[in-house]
């Protein structure tokens, strides 16, 4: 194996990891603040891809789609939180799991009822088609764009959490919801906002992955479980953890494909089990 091929394999893994990063940040945010394991996250990812594909169809602009998909998913997320999830706080893990799983069924099957079992076409936009020379190899422009978009998203989320009042409340609520409320923060709005933001990130992930992998009703099923792996390894509720773990898992899986393809999926869950056994709070989580 030449050095060029190994480098290419590395970059490839990083890009696959980048999509996990975006989706997992959303999942981690929701878990960190609402203490909910969101089984609807894959369905939200899928819905985001659909909305983006439609937005491209209507407006002809990929850039508009990249805004429309997460924004409308945020609104949808707030709606779901207000109508359902918000009524279940304090009722234990199982009810939130059940509720989000039910939402997932309704969203996936609802999409099939509305738009059929075959998804819309979603092609790589013309301005991002083609390849760039990375020095060691040619590489699809769009995949590099996904990497860039992920970096910007991570920065954006960090800025939101650390430089805006809403972010401050969100962080406060994740540490001590009671105290936060006692200080006069409208905790219900904070929780709805955090859920909306998490859902928006799932939608953005779907919108970015759509042109690469196709858009179809079941597209979120695998990535749901995979992002659990990433979130657990990185540490539930940790932004940095989701970023590092997402990229790490992407690269590890990419090289497993190269050397021992049989273990490519097994390795994900072995990593997850090992993390839970040895360091349950994850790489960057706090107890």
């Amino acid at each position, binding site marked *: 194996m030449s050095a060029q091929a190994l480098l290419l394999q590395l970059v490839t893994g990083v890009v696959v990891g980048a999509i996990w990063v975006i989706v997992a940040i959303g999942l981690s945010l929701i878990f960190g603040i609402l203490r909910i394991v969101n089984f609807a996250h894959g369905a939200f990812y899928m819905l985001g891809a659909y909305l983006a594909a439609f937005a491209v169809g209507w407006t002809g602009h990929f850039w508009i789609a990249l805004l429309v998909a997460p924004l409308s998913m945020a609104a949808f997320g707030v709606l779901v939180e207000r109508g359902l999830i918000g009524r279940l706080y304090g009722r234990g893990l199982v009810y939130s799991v059940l509720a989000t799983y039910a939402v997932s069924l309704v969203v996936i099957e609802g999409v099939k009822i509305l738009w059929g079992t075959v998804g819309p076409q979603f092609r790589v936009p013309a301005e991002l088609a083609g390849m760039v020379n990375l020095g060691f190899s040619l590489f699809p422009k769009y995949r590099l764009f996904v990497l860039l978009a992920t970096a910007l998203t991570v920065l954006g989320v960090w800025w939101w959490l650390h430089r805006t009042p809403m972010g401050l409340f969100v962080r406060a609520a994740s540490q001590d919801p009671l105290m936060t409320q006692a200080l006069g923060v409208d905790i219900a709005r904070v929780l709805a906002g955090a859920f909306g933001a998490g859902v928006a990130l799932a939608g953005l992930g779907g919108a970015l992955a759509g042109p690469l992998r196709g858009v179809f009703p079941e597209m979120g099923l695998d990535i749901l479980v995979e992002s659990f792996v990433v979130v657990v390894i990185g540490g539930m509720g940790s932004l940095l953890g989701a970023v590092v773990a997402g990229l790490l898992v992407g690269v590890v*899986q990419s090289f497993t494909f190269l050397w021992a393809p049989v273990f490519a999926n097994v390795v994900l869950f072995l990593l997850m089990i090992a993390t839970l056994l040895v360091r349950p709070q994850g790489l960057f989580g706090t107890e």
Partner: protein
Amino acid sequence: MRITRREFLRGVVAGGAALAVPEALRSIVHAAPREPIRIGFPAPLTGAFADEANYMVQGATLAVEEFNRAGGVLGRQVELLVRDDRLSPDEGARRALELIERERVHFLAGVLSAAVQLAVNEVAKRHRRIFVSTSQSDKIVMPPDFSPWTFHEALTPWMTSTALARYVLREGRGKRVYILYADYAYGQEHTAAWRRVIGEVGASLVGVDPHPLGTTDYSAYLPKIMAARPDVLVLNNFGRDIVNSAKQAVELGLKQRAQIAVPIIPTAAALEAGPEVLGDVVCASSYWWEVQERIPKAKEFNTKFSRRFNRVPSDYAAYAYSGVRELLEAVQRTGTTDSDRVAKAMEGRRYAHYKDTQYWRACDHQSVQTIFLLRGRERPRGPYGLFDIIATVEGERVIPSCEALGHR
């Protein structure tokens, strides 16, 4: 929320009524001679092959409608009972059991995945019902899976890949072959055929990788393939897997370096991938609508299909149409729905329902038929004009002998 719940309950009550009434009726009707002829038709309406499955259901529907318009079969209406097998063999087996036990279907037909087809075939075999399979598999025409009630309207992977591989490796760009295949019956069987032809023509296999059925991101497989510098890249997968794997290989520039060959590109996948991906890609097919330029029967079928469904028929729509049509004609000829007698009437018969003549080989019930080799056009002729027909191969030239398949 309250309204939703009430609506929901109403649905349940209506459902209960809908369920109870036909059941009661059926028990009265059961003995009467006018009972409809029921064909159970499992198909992967959801999952990676959903697009092509819809074509298949339309093909079968067209055949059934033609008979019903002409007064039915034996004076009885024909009912097509479509079930979603969700591309999973356990679900396929479950639905087939449900079709036989609950709906009391007389025959089974359809299915698109090799693995699901084998599972459905087992259920049909146990209940001694004819199953006309419209999905590719080698094992289904071989013992122990084959049964006297099994009919295989589709081509086998062996036939398809042998035809394509011989063409590509004898007249193509080179002899270094890399195979990426979906890791289930279909992909394995096609890969086995490629391996044999590679040995036969003295080409070399520089790499083989299996991928799980329904994989969406192939980027991790591609650097290895590029590094192996193959002359021919073979994608032994199906449905959405073809679209994603071919698209991602092309995006990485593999088309400039190697001839991409795919055993079958079902029409739905071809339309989804489009000419940017498929230009210059070669494949084999039982049917491509543009064969109508040489075969009048195809023109007739295309017209009927597009008038009814507003699009050109796909290869699998044609299988389903032909398989169901052939089955019902046999019922008509024998005057019975008894699977044993209908099966005897089908064995060895020659027929042509949508292209040139094909026939059921007696030993394995394989439909021996023409294979078309296609090459993607860089510049398509209209929205559907994606392929040039570059060769035709007679089925008899690529089918293994009965003895080789384990039939006496």
